[in-house]
């Protein structure tokens, strides 16, 4: 099934404070802004705290109504905000053949335990945030660069759409800084 007909399912892994809950919502908004027919952002809510593994999902479709609320178990794309999560057995085992990983890492990752038939894209989101001073009280605000990388990899939305949605959600105040990290990631994401 082509991307046009199916429901594309995205799973995001981060640690509390690394902002993947917001990322799942922003991704949905950007896709919708680009004319996707239906979207849903699903955060897994429990007892969140800084540093604990957090998961969020987004489902997007160009042509179909999305009727499900369940977790994504066979994602088309996985966002890995924190490389240390990749080696938690539960998360590692969820990586199946055919999936595309967007990984926050400056360097190639150890793939010895992962299936062969997967695509991996690397973006140094943390490095970009530090360089641009795009930080909050406990670390880098990773969602914008991760979404910049995803936009480039999939072509689902471009920087202009990102700017529109970020402006709508967060206003003018930090728009320039948001866009600088988005652009850095958009331009530097590379396939491993």
């Amino acid at each position: 099934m082509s991307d046009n007909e199916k429901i594309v399912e995205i799973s995001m892994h981060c640690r509390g404070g690394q902002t993947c809950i917001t990322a799942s919502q922003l991704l949905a908004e950007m896709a919708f802004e680009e004319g996707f027919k239906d979207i849903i952002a699903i955060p897994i809510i429990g007892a969140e705290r800084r540093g604990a593994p957090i998961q969020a999902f987004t489902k997007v479709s160009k042509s179909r109504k999305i009727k499900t609320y369940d977790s994504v178990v066979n994602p088309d794309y996985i966002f890995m905000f924190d490389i240390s999560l990749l080696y938690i057995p539960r998360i590692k085992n969820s990586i199946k053949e055919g999936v595309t990983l967007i990984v926050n890492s400056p360097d190639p990752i150890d793939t010895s335990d992962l299936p062969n038939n997967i695509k991996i894209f690397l973006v140094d989101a943390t490095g970009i945030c530090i360089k641009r001073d795009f930080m909050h009280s406990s670390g880098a605000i990773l969602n914008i660069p991760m979404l910049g990388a995803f936009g480039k990899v999939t072509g689902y939305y471009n920087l202009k759409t990102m700017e529109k949605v970020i402006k709508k959600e967060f206003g003018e105040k930090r728009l320039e800084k948001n866009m600088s990290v988005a652009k850095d990631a958009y331009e530097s994401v590379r396939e491993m």
Partner: protein
Amino acid sequence: MTEVQNDFIQKRESIIIKGNVAAAYAAKSARVQVISAYPITPQTTVVEKLSEFVDNGLMPGTQYIKMESEHSVFAAVVGASKAGTRTFTATSGQGIFYAHEMIHWAAGARLPIVVSIASRGPAPPWNIWADFTDVISQRDTGWMNCFCSEHQEIYDEILMSYKVCEDHDILLPKFVSYGGFILSHTSKPVILEDQDLVDKFLPPLPSEEGWPHIWMDPKRPMMFGNLIMPSSFYYEFRLKIHDANMRAKEKIKKVAKEFEKIFGRNYGNGLIQEYEMDNANVGVIIYGDLALQMEQAVEDLRGEGYKVGMVKLRHFRPFPTENLIEAAKKVKLLGVIDRATAFGSQTGGPVSCEVKAALHETKGTATVLPIINGLGGREVTLEQQKDQLLKLVKYNETGELPKDMIHGTLWDGLLEIE
């Protein structure tokens, strides 16, 4: 018109919001005049969003009252409604239980209050996830109660509910409920309707007119809720609450039709919504968020050639007995799926009990198989729902009951304990 009032008028657009935010926008669109608030997960963001609206001057004339508990929250809307205003609040789980006394009071006084409920499992153990036992436990208070399965439906249903509740022939309060976190905290596109159009469908209340039976006016003092002797009208008032509930069925249907005419969105006949029930052998009755996902399961299995269908139960009170009897005549076997409990009852599930009672003494209707799933937010996947349908198909074809039936009910999705 002032500048602030101009802002209040919205343009018709689809925005991506959480279910809770959809509830808040609905209260704003309905031009509610009094909101009382106390936070409780997973409802909190409903009243948070409303406080933002009021603080930003987007709801001119609306009073926002912070209370110290849910009991007081309901007392406040009861008081405000007695004064003839359109009132709104939201709560969940333990909050409903704490407010139970005032919940009876609102229905007894026949006040058209609308409250959104982000349902969660009753404690203990402490639980904040989807489970409709909280709102269904208010079954006998006289409140109407409906379930939403989608974000847009939350917005739409709140508008429809005010129209039904405030009708002078009805005058009852109503819960508009949806699964905690599953709808309250996920985001989907929602169309916020043009204020002019909403005003046409649900006109703002004329101020100081009050309800026909109860109002507050220092020039015409009256007593509320005083003691009346058993020989007086208490008994008759109770009958009237039941009678209003029963008559509300026709009103709900009428309002759903009118809503569709103006806004173009269909919610079945308002009480139930059938999906693929014609020429089905096996069907399910289901409510809340799982009803939307079940539509996908039915669609998928239809694609594989199985003759399955479903009925989405929109209203639990008033209970659409007549419609369910008709739907049950279309199939041989009917699974009734509860995400709630009625401990010690015939089936353990509140809706399956009611469906069994409704079909009793009606010849030629389906056999009922009660199913319980998803308690306390336990995830129910699309695959699991397809499997439920296949179990029903198998039972219908072979007469073989699913394994693991407990006291005559299929408790689906239990953990396997060694």
